[in-house]
């Protein structure tokens, strides 16, 4: 339990717990005040969301506390669940069956294996090169050319988003940053906290003072006020957490800005996918939130960018 001896890590975790405790109290107060039907529905959803947050923080906390392998296993499971949700929604044909087996049983475990062993080259190339070329080859051997380009693109997309992108979060632990050895867990926590707090604050600020719809044709609940207010606050928070990272305050601010912008893009892109498939959520595994992929849509976009920027400038 070397990690538990890390003061900064304890502060981070303590901060998250305090944040959740305050949110729980506020939700209870709001619950007593909600009068109208729609207000009550909003508060009930808020209560469900916060309850689910406690569970997610517990799972993530255990993963972090058990060190690198714990986080790895957790993110591999997250990838699996996200991929299951995504694949279920997509139209596939009988001829795709073998290629789908490969995505689940070969590429997903292999990607996390390369993260575990710290083999950066294969980690970075497995899916963009090997899977990219192998999957359509497997598909074409099944002999069905109907809708072929769309079918093979869909599989690539699922694998990129759910496995390649997500795996960049635990891969932060394999970065060797001078003067920061063995402290990667805090970097991972920084990424996840800024990404998720940005989501939460965008939602909260949007609900409180949101007026102008940002992109009504894609995601009618997103507002300009939510983006600016919530995103801005998340950047401030990220900047305030510089002491837990290898970054100077101004670097932490820029990193947070990148995380927030990527997260916004990820949320919008995945909303467009849901619109396209005519569903509201990717699943129903997390009460109040929807599916796993609904919760990590912003992380899918922020993790690879954050990973590569950190790797490029700090290792």
């Amino acid at each position: 339990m070397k990690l538990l001896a890390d003061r900064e890590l304890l502060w981070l975790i303590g901060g998250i717990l305090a944040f959740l405790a305050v949110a729980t109290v506020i939700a209870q107060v709001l619950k007593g005040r909600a009068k109208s039907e729609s207000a009550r529905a909003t508060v009930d959803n808020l209560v469900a969301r916060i309850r689910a947050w406690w569970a997610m923080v517990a799972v993530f906390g255990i993963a972090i506390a058990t060190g690198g392998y714990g986080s790895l296993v957790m993110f591999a499971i997250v990838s699996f669940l996200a991929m299951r949700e995504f694949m279920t929604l997509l139209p596939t044909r009988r001829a795709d069956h073998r290629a789908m087996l490969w995505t689940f049983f070969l590429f997903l475990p292999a990607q996390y294996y390369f993260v575990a062993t710290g083999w950066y080259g294969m980690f970075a190339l497995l899916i963009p090169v090997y899977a990219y070329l192998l999957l359509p080859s497997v598909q074409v051997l099944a002999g069905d050319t109907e809708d072929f380009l769309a079918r093979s693109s869909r599989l690539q997309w699922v694998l990129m988003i759910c496995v390649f992108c997500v795996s960049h979060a635990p891969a932060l632990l394999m970065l060797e940053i001078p003067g920061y050895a063995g402290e990667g867990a805090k970097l991972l926590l920084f990424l996840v906290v800024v990404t998720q707090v940005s989501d939460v604050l965008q939602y909260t600020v949007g609900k409180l003072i949101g007026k102008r719809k940002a992109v009504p044709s894609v995601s009618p609940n997103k507002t300009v006020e939510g983006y600016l207010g919530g995103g801005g606050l998340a950047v401030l928070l990220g900047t305030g957490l510089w002491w837990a990272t290898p970054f100077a305050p101004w670097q932490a601010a820029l990193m947070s800005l990148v995380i927030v912008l990527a997260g916004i893009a990820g949320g919008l892109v995945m909303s467009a996918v849901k619109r396209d498939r005519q569903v509201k959520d990717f699943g129903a595994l997390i009460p109040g939130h929807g599916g796993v992929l609904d919760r990590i849509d912003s992380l899918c976009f922020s993790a690879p960018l954050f990973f590569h920027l950190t790797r490029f400038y700090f290792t």
Partner: protein
Amino acid sequence: MLLERLVSALLRGTCRLVTGAQPRWLCDPRVLGPRVYFANHCSHLDTVVVWSTLPDALRERTRPVAARDYWGHGAVRRFIAHRVFDALLIDRKAAEGAELIERQRQETLEAMTAVLDAERSLILYPEGTRGTGETVQAFRAGLYHLARARPRVPLVPVYLGNLARILPKGAALPVPMQGQVVFGPELHLAAGEEKQAFLERCRRAMLELGEGRE
């Protein structure tokens, strides 16, 4: 006993993991039966999915109807069919000659009514054989004859979604996508209802369950 329980738990766990199937109940899941659950047939997973999503008390009282020519062969299949599923094996292969066919049909019907008379439920597939999963084929007459023989026993349509994509015909390994299991409201044969009209009504009831997906 221990081995049966172990295999049963293992099958249910694997099924849960592979299909992630959570049942949706539009009829009362606490009614112990007898009932006739009739489902669309598109994958080898069908029986294990319906069977494993039933609550424990119901599952113990439910016998899936299965083809003897498949489940009666080989020690493992026989063990699972008899000792784990407690399946009712029936002859699918048509006998030669009109008289023999009629007798075989009569025997099958008697075997099924005997299960219902013992206060137990049945799982059956009125399409007969597995389809591609894209459409639900026309129902065979067996469901009608069973409903006429035991008109008081409720019939429950069960819609299985996505299982043909998870494990299609001819595939050995399943892709772990999300399956869908919907238990619909109970049905009965109406007084004087024609065979074709009744079978079509049952088929429509099953299809509607599939359209209700989000």
